[in-house]
């Protein structure tokens, strides 16, 4: 499961607003910073990560991410740094806690529910006999045709 989650993390498309002057010289550290940019919301923007925003706030946040990384902070520590200051709001990927928990489990629950309903309906369907029925109007029309 964890592996799957890791694989799926790689899905996010890098869309980079990062300016050359902001970037770290070490490509490994810069790659980590860019991955974090995608996880942090630009709080001054409308549903945009700092990775893609051209806002000044986002640019400052990108520089801050890189400073923290250069200081040797881990990815989790960088996230915590931002969450401490701006709340859970800065996470683009809500944590599976509180209101966020509902969000994460809603779809799997609905899938199970959907499969359950489908299976029950199929069972009932197979038990029921196949009868073709005519509406009252159709019956009347049929009678009329047969009389002729």
């Amino acid at each position: 499961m964890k592996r799957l989650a890791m694989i799926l993390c790689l899905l996010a498309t890098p869309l980079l607003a990062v300016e050359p002057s902001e970037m770290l010289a070490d490509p490994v550290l810069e790659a980590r910073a860019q991955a974090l940019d995608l996880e942090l919301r630009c709080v001054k923007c409308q549903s945009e990560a700092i990775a893609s925003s051209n806002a000044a706030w986002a640019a400052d946040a990108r520089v801050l991410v890189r400073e923290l990384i250069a200081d040797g902070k881990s990815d989790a520590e960088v996230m915590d740094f931002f969450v401490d200051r701006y709340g859970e709001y800065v996470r683009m990927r809500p944590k599976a806690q509180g209101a966020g928990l509902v969000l994460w489990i809603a779809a799997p629950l609905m899938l199970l529910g959907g499969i359950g309903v489908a299976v029950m309906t199929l069972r009932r369907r197979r038990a029921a006999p196949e009868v073709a029925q005519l509406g009252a109007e159709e019956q009347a029309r049929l009678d009329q045709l047969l009389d002729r």
Partner: protein
Amino acid sequence: MYTELGHFALILAFCIAILQTVVPLIGAQKGWTAWMRIGEPAASLQFILIAASFAALTHAFVVSDFSVALVASNSHTLKPMLYKVTGVWGNHEGSLLLWVLILALFGACAAWFGGGLPARLRARVLGVQGSISVAFLAFILWTSNPFERLEIPPFNGQDLNPLLQDVGLAFHPPFLYLGYVGLSMSFSFAVAALIEGRVDAAWGRWVRPWTLAAWLFLTIGIALGSWWAYYELGWGGFWFWDPVENASFMPWLIAAALLHSAIVVEKREALKSWTVLLAILAFGFSLIGTFIVRSGVLTSVHAFANDPERGMFILAILVAFTGGALVLYALRAHALQAKGVFALASRETALIANNVLLAVAGFVVFIGTVWPLVAELAWGQKLSVGPPFFDAAFTPFMVALAIILPIGAIIPWKRARLGRAGRSLLPALIAAIAIGALVWTMQSGRSILAPIAAVLAVWIIGGTLVELWTRAGKGAAAMKFRRLAGLPRADWGKAVAHSGFAITLFGVAALTAWQTEDIRVAQVGDSFDVGAYRVTLDAVREDVRGPNWQATEADVTLRRNGDIVAQLTPEKRFYPVAGMPTTEAAIANGVFRDLYVVVGDPQDGGGYALRTHIKPFANWIWAGAIIMALGGGLSLSDRRHRIAVGARKAARTVPAE
């Protein structure tokens, strides 16, 4: 003058829509033929009036009549003519007028081509369709009048948002609206069927082409929007899980489910009440989409209007129609008796699985989109739900869908033997695994995403080929070709649309997994390597002038092994009237990769920010979408739909009583 006539025509259309709602519905209930017949001329007249109104507004934009408030705030004399015209729907009021125009067009089509429908059902369909018009025309007339005049007209307009001055985006809204509003037909049919209390194969045959058409337009509209984002926003991102994108994606997913379940109703008379529910939900999601976009409640870059009064009005429409239809559904759905019996291993079951997956995928998008709002209202928690959530929560459903697709497509109706289907699909499976392994070794240790997508894409396309091969039967090659050519177009449409889905799937995964980018400060004359390419910044020209913009232009040459591959001129534009910069990326399109160059601001130490991206298989994303739409079109042109229409016309000439 024209403006006032346009306004007047809109008011008349509103009155006609009321007539179209009330009279045929009463007529159908009481069995009064004359009252039922009012629906058709009313629908035609309503369309003509709204078209006249739309023409009046377009005229005001074309001649730049700045005494009309809408034109003054969204147009400019220097704007190219194309964008003057498309500017009509590049704003809140005009886009709603386009919305009702398309709504009336669909209603009129039902009147024009609905000759074969039972008179009562047709009257009810037109009545329900009319009621939607009433709601939206009232919304326009009372909260969003596009014909409002200014007391003191300005000398010139404020120009259209420059991001919208683009061919891709100019035609993105009309296609989306054709899709959104097209689903209103499925909705009207569903509600009419609930009032009648019956759904049969003929109903399925009627709903399918409308849904197919709506889905086809939605596909094109979404693809245009995504393609626009790719080349215009300057990052090469093609999908952002923005609330407004989601708003168009939810009805697409539900419409895709509806398409498939309507087939079951048509062929097997099963899944009736589920199909009716999907039809209601599909249009419900279109209304939610309209609400999200038009109210600005989930603020995003797309919101034109942030007016609470408007938001409340659309919310009321949404609640009244979706809620009303769902109540009707709860009361009447039990009357819709299923007939077809089928075994667990059958195409019916596979299509149910398809429906569950698509519906849950749509639900994931829905909950992710509205959850920040819900969490804030219910618990006072501020949350962000961004692309990382959607990627993780949505993708598994598409993978599962791709896995079951070829099996469901090939197994027979009613009762299937899985072993037989498995044996015939074996070549596709082997090919898929072989290609996947090849991709896996070639890419050496990068994300597993692309190999998985390659496996799935080959599996789907291979499965489609196997199915066609089976349908070709036995015998000489000429015989086989004749049989293939004789297959119904709907079958070809299915093969083409499924292949398009596979191509998009692979394009998305390959681009995401394999793209490379380089961001740096380059001086004029600098050369550097990106991937297998050598990039040279040859020259930069500042102060290039267009009709309503100024730009900085760069000449960039890309070489591979010393040979010139592409010469690109990316621009950074500035629109002085709107006071907005835009990035015009330069893209060398290719079948296997796009080369994507963006020039940025001049830097303090001299030189320019230059971004070079290599985007493998980018075009496959939109090519796949277009192929899906083509498949839909092929299916729509099937003889069976046309013959059915002809047969019904012939039936009508026989006296009904």
